[in-house]
């Protein structure tokens, strides 16, 4: 590089280059649509080709999982649900059987608040349609009729490679679990390919590998009422951050918001929270837990969190106040109050 009056512009241009490409070269972002959502894979450091191959792999994997686990599609889960409706058994492979076993134990631990057998209820509300949003809540009598039959994983039996349901109204819907499983698998895949620093973010729910160079990965948690970022935290190798909120999928009817997180006890959208965030090592468990904790709401979440082994939890209540476990309080920093401008950090430590 020449140092002259033209060298100064050169130097400025180099500074500009350094400023412009430093973050660009450090982190490569791969983005694709899969699992009905936008998936970002940010890779730090590892060479581009390796990362590109990993991202392409994960995209294929996510697309296959989406097909296999869609409750009403042509894949494995859709086949099972149609068989249940006819009162028949259906073949099930070891992978899906293992997954359902895990889901059943999480459902049991959550006292049934996380329930993967609500497929018909979700469909009745119109939340299973990928293309359309419902416009009005369903008839209360139809909700009651479904619940009266008795839903829940205890109605399912898996034996000799086949699955059976004692209730034809049961349909499996892995929403609130599948995305977590997929994120875990993506992380496994990246690690297997030798990627040592990355974030997998599937529609807002994420898990990290390694670090961002000489510092941990930094995550912002979106404000539940669309006002930017409400809190920030540093996430370490292998940890995942999952959030469930009433803002993700909803419709308004006669001045009331109806969202997609249904309470299996009432058959209606849960009302005890507007968002729940957990930090946990296992994305699949975290995914099931945010759903259960959301349904538990501000009164009951502590017991459910303990039963599910969740130590790091933040809940934003229906009135906008924030509650956190002491462990979460230690890790997370609020950057703005929730909704009423007066955050009330409730908890043992308050």
């Amino acid at each position, binding site marked *: *590089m*020449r*140092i*002259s*009056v*033209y*060298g*100064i*512009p*050169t*130097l*400025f*241009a*180099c*500074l*500009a*280059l350094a*400023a*412009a*490409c430093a*973050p*660009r070269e450090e982190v490569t972002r791969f983005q694709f649509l899969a699992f009905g959502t936008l998936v970002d894979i940010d890779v730090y450091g590892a060479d581009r080709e390796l990362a590109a191959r990993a991202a392409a792999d994960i995209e294929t994997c996510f697309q296959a999982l989406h097909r296999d686990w869609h409750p009403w599609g042509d894949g494995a889960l859709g086949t099972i649900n149609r068989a249940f409706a006819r009162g028949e058994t259906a073949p099930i492979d070891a992978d899906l059987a293992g997954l359902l076993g895990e889901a059943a134990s999480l459902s049991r631990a959550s006292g049934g608040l996380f329930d993967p057998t609500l497929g018909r209820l979700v469909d009745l509300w119109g939340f299973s349609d990928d293309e359309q949003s419902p416009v009005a809540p369903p008839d209360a009598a139809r909700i009651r009729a479904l619940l009266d039959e008795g839903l829940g994983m205890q109605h399912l039996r898996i034996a000799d490679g086949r699955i059976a349901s004692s209730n034809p109204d049961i349909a499996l819907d892995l929403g609130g679990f599948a995305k977590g499983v997929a994120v875990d698998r993506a992380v496994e895949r990246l690690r297997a390919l030798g990627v040592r620093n990355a974030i997998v973010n599937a529609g807002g729910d994420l898990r990290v590998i390694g670090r961002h160079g000489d510092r941990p990965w930094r995550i912002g948690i979106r404000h539940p009422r669309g006002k930017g970022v409400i809190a920030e935290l540093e996430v370490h190798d292998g940890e995942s951050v999952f959030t469930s909120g009433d803002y993700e999928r909803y419709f308004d009817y006669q001045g009331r918001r109806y969202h997609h997180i249904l309470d299996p006890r009432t058959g209606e959208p849960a009302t005890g929270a507007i968002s729940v965030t957990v930090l946990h090592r296992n994305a699949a468990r975290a995914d099931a837990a945010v759903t259960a904790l959301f349904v538990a709401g501000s009164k009951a979440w502590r017991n459910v969190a303990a039963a599910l082994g969740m130590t790091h939890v933040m809940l934003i209540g229906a009135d906008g106040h924030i509650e956190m476990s002491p462990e979460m309080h230690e890790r997370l920093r609020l950057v703005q109050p929730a909704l009423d401008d007066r955050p009330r950090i409730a908890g043992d430590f308050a």
Partner: protein
Amino acid sequence: MTVSTSDRLIAGFAGLAIAIHVLEAALPSPLPGVKPGLANVVTLVVLLRYGWVAAAWVSGLRVLAGSLLLGSLLSPTFFLSACGAAAALLALAAGKRLPGHGLSAIGFGVLAALAHMAAQIVAAYFLFIGHPAILNLVPPLMTAAFVFGLVSGIIASTVLGILDRQPNSLRAGGS
């Protein structure tokens, strides 16, 4: 091939420019690499005393010798440098064609510095990455180019004044 007077002049001025550049590299600086750019004064002086072709030689030799000294020949830095220098020379040629009494060192200095900077930004944007962040740096970079172009123009103008007052100063034959 004989060594002409103008060859010697060009070599001498290029050497001077490189020497200034080496001296400046040793100066402490608030920002890494930011220097006042006195070597450019030489290009302006050569342009106004010996014409555009001589200035192009001095500037070209400096790009080459500078990158050889710093081991950056044919590297991206070198291409940025060459793009900038070429644009600056084109701007100087255009400045020469302005009507009226023409430009003095000050006008040439600003013209060359802005052209140099603009070419480097464009080259950096297209050669490397079209990252929009680079666009945010355009205003301060252009401001710096303007200020340094002005300063080098004033110094060159002063140097030219001193040279003009010395009757036996170097003159290229026939100019």
